[in-house]
């Protein structure tokens, strides 16, 4: 009984590991890191997590479908570039809307190529990433783009409530909305079935292709929204492709730390968001200690490696208890049963 409770406690901790790791890191840094534990810095942490937090929503969905989207970083940059590019003619709303439409179109192309042409999502989105970076440089002429209008940027960053500027509230709303959609609606739950067991999805009458296309569209739209919000909050967008790589890597790490497996069928956008918060908090805290970026990278790498090793151990334990080849055990049982029938 006692052992059972401990096991249950460990399982519970594992289920909420991203949140617990984030809280642990936050508490530790609050106690020991200079200048870390202030309202201003906590607000800054939440703001800094908004881009990756929003991108992680769609990326988690793609993972749940058992696919991969390497183009998210490039979508962030290209769609972000459209916002200051179009703002003078169309205003902020028009620019953001165009960015979202562009994101949807990119996702549609990715989804069609994966679902209908049957090409691996890794190859499709890798190609898309390179194309989009080229398009972005052509569009921007190789430079960054900016507008000298800071009204929206000021509004997005000024806290409406303590710790909560609109940029953070939008992120919370999107993460919460996406989580409810995935858990509480039949359409949302369908993503888990399609990603976890395509055969069962087929039997249940779920159209896998439609789910894949929709998943890629949502993934690109969230990336576009992340880019648009970043551009709006900076009143500009950088033309340096480093941002694309960093975004992809951070989100990829966060989704894995959040417990969404690449094999598909399970995952949580809320947990991915907590993992984004964890990575941002660790980077921020290390900065407060005055340590360099190499230490931040190392720490984030250690967290990711620890989670991956833990996952590998869990799978090993699971296989050990279940047996490496359960179908052979079933065959053996069947054989024994038929033998016993024969002897009767």
């Amino acid at each position: 009984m006692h052992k059972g409770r401990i096991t249950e406690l460990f399982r519970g901790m594992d289920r909420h590991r991203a949140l617990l790791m984030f809280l642990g890191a936050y508490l530790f840094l609050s106690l020991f890191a200079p200048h870390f534990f202030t309202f201003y810095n906590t607000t800054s942490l939440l703001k800094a997590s908004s881009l990756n937090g929003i991108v992680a929503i769609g990326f988690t969905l793609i993972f749940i479908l058992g696919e991969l989207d390497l183009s998210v970083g490039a979508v962030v940059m290209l769609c972000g570039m459209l916002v200051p590019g179009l703002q003078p003619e169309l205003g902020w709303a028009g620019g953001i809307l165009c960015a979202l439409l562009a994101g949807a179109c990119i996702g549609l192309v990715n989804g069609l190529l994966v679902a209908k042409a049957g090409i691996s999502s890794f190859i499709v989105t890798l190609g898309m990433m390179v194309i989009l970076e080229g398009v972005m440089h052509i569009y921007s002429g190789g430079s960054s783009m900016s507008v000298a209008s800071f009204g929206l940027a000021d509004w997005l960053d000024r806290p409406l409530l303590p710790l909560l500027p609109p940029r953070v509230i939008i992120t919370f709303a999107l993460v919460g909305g996406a989580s409810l959609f995935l858990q509480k609606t039949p359409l949302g739950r369908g993503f888990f079935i399609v990603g976890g067991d395509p055969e069962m999805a087929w039997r249940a009458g779920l159209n896998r292709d439609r789910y894949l296309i929709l998943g890629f569209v949502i993934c690109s739209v969230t990336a576009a929204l992340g880019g648009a919000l970043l551009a709006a909050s900076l009143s500009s967008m950088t033309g340096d492709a480093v941002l694309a790589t960093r975004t992809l890597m951070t989100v990829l790490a966060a989704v894995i730390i959040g417990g969404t497996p690449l094999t598909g069928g399970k995952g949580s956008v809320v947990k991915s968001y907590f993992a984004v918060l964890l990575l941002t908090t660790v980077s921020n805290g290390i900065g407060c200690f005055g340590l360099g970026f190499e230490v931040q990278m190392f720490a984030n790498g250690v967290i990711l490696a620890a989670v991956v090793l833990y996952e590998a151990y869990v799978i090993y334990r699971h296989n050990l208890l279940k047996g490496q080849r359960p179908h052979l055990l079933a065959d053996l049982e069947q054989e024994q049963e038929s033998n016993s029938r024969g002897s009767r």
Partner: protein
Amino acid sequence: MTQNRTRQKTVGSSTARLLLGSLLLVAALLAGCPERKTGREEMTREERLRKSRKAARKVQKMVSTDGQPLVAWGTKQDVPPRPEEPQSLPKTEKGHWWNQEYAGWKTEKVNIPESPADGAWGKEIVLIRAGDHPYWTAYMKGFKRVADAFNMDVTIYNSNWNIVLQAQQTEQAINQRPDMIIFAPVDPTSCTLLLREINRAGVPVIASNTLISNEAMKYVISWTGPDDWGQFRMLARRFADAMDKTGGYAIVRHMPGSSCFFARTYGPITTFKDYGPEMELLAMNTANLKSAQTMELVSAWLTKYGQKLDGLILPGDGFSLTGALEAVQSANREDITIVAAGSSETGLQAVKDGEVLGITYQTAEGDGALACFTAAQWLNGKDLPPVRYLPKEVITQQKVDTYLPAQW
């Protein structure tokens, strides 16, 4: 089924409890936010100023690894009047680039704080650097030497070429409420809002290294760094002289998104318009400062243009130079005139060996030292110019020994 639903509910409610509890915990902790204070050396204003002035005299006598003065700056150059609409002019006209080339000279400053004029000695400085590169290692060396001379308490953030990270670090730096922030931007344009944020928080800020946009210049006390346009104009004139102001040339461009992408391309092009109008631009493209990519690019040009290609202008004397030299040597075209932005050990050695006609002298240690020294001067109460360039020079075989050993 019912069991599953009950379990889902239990899991759901435990998640909600955990979330609520966590939020309450964070809120409770934040409610009692302790403000940490830095331990500063207690000293009178006069004593601090006296020590600062003494340190300034000491710094001005320092030399960098290559034997050049550690802290030096060029004189104010003549700024031509701004064209009505620079963007409407063709890119081959100097006027098109006026906003970039003369950024800061005519900018009206906004909300610049008054200097406390109580000395730089023992002050708290935050440096937000753009990223990692051997140039930045040398930059840091120069910066720290000056900071140590003024007994400054320095915190360094490394943005690793990521604007999102730089935005976060900017807020962290403001949160520290230092006496000065020295900001080396990842992006010359996207940094505008970050500098504005520092400015609005009332923290003095000096920008360094990458030339920032005119709009961004409004918010900084001063900008220090290399005159990329100016030094590439000098290099272009030397290049044109060596080519007798005739023949075809190609430009390997810097990384898209950087200010060098334009300065190191259009600096020479607009210079040749007057200085070498007979010279023909055959091709220009970026190789992202990668050696293998540069080799492929230059090899392709050599195949395409053959003997028509007489000269190459390179964006850097590191990987770009090694890639270009490999391509040139493979094609037995050592007759090609090469110039590059410098001044790394590879570049200086190539100049010495006669493989390269000339490289620009850009002191990395001096770049860091000048930023820190300018900050110290402002804290001492000195008026500063809006722009402070590093000294410019083209290093050729005749004077290369003066710049050895290399800084990086």
